[in-house]
């Protein structure tokens, strides 16, 4: 067994909580392994030192002040509303105010929005895509009353008079570009 696996038993060996067979096994290894003997010695020294490294006592004046400070803080918290302390209100009134009122408000808004959008079916206009809106706009723009001379149009925009229809289609297709 490699040394690393014996090191795991050091803690229990120091605490004298190994069973006899484990203890014998470890002690036999320690007899032949100076590295492990040294490591065990260091671990014992470290533990003794850690146990003796007590916390400095800040003094009775501090302890008395600490107690009164903690008690006054907890008295203050009894006067603070529980919501500010991070508690949820468990009373029926608290549950109604926390959950039911927002739920009721959102339900009313939902019903109101449905009734407005349904309204009179005769008033309902079809929903157009952006591309269709452009086509409609172009058709109105170039309707009979507003029609401009294709030659004049192509002279302004460039290209041949035959491409007028294609340009119009292009205008309509702009709406499809994302």
């Amino acid at each position, binding site marked *: 067994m490699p040394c690393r696996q014996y090191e795991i038993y050091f803690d229990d060996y120091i605490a004298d909580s190994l069973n006899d067979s484990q203890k014998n096994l470890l002690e036999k290894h320690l007899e032949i392994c100076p590295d492990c003997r040294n490591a065990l010695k260091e671990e014992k020294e470290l533990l003794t030192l*850690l146990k003796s490294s007590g916390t400095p006592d800040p003094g009775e004046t501090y302890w008395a002040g600490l107690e009164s400070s903690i008690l006054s803080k907890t008295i203050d918290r009894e006067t603070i509303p529980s919501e500010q302390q991070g508690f949820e209100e468990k009373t029926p009134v608290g549950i109604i105010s926390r959950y039911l009122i927002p739920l009721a408000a959102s339900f009313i808004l939902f019903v109101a929005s449905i009734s407005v959008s349904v309204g009179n079916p005769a008033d309902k206009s079809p929903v157009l895509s952006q591309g269709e809106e452009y086509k409609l706009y172009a058709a109105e723009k170039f309707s009979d009353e507003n029609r401009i001379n294709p030659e004049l149009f192509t002279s302004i925009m460039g290209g041949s008079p035959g491409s007028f229809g294609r340009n119009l289609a292009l205008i309509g297709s702009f709406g499809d570009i994302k």
Partner: protein
Amino acid sequence: MSDETKDLVQRFIDGDRKAFAELVGRYKKRVYSVAYQMLGNHLDADEVTQETFVRIYDRRHLLRNVNYFTSFLMRIATNYSIDIIRWRQKDFVPIDDDQSVAAPVKAELADKTEMPDKQIENKDLFERINRAVNKLPPRQRLTVVLHDIEGYSKAEVATIMGCPQATVRSNLHIARSKLRKWLAKKV
């Protein structure tokens, strides 16, 4: 935990402020000591101690079983200590950069520990030990503080930390190896 303490804890859960005051009196030094060992200074230990008792007061309704009072209290204290350590991680100095920890203390240690009854008075030595402990990662530091310094059993440490005992053993083994290495360096 004695029956008297269990009775106190039950009264505290039921909202008795006198019982709470009594528990503060009994446990304040334990909480302060763990916090001091974890954080290494009085101001932080004081803050952790006060906040721990305020938090357990607020959360007393969560304490269903009186037997878990000590573990619950220490868990609040150690979690808050770890929070403080993590908030300050940005100021962390790697161990290899801090040569003061690696002072030649091994011979000094051997000399002192041969006399366990004699009170060790070397303040400088303890400061180096504390600095070395404070260089450990928070969970390993907590294991060493609770088990090796404060004397809690492995089962108690596992309950406080909310992990299996095997993890406690593993943390202890790694942490002690690091401490031995750091403190014995340059000997």
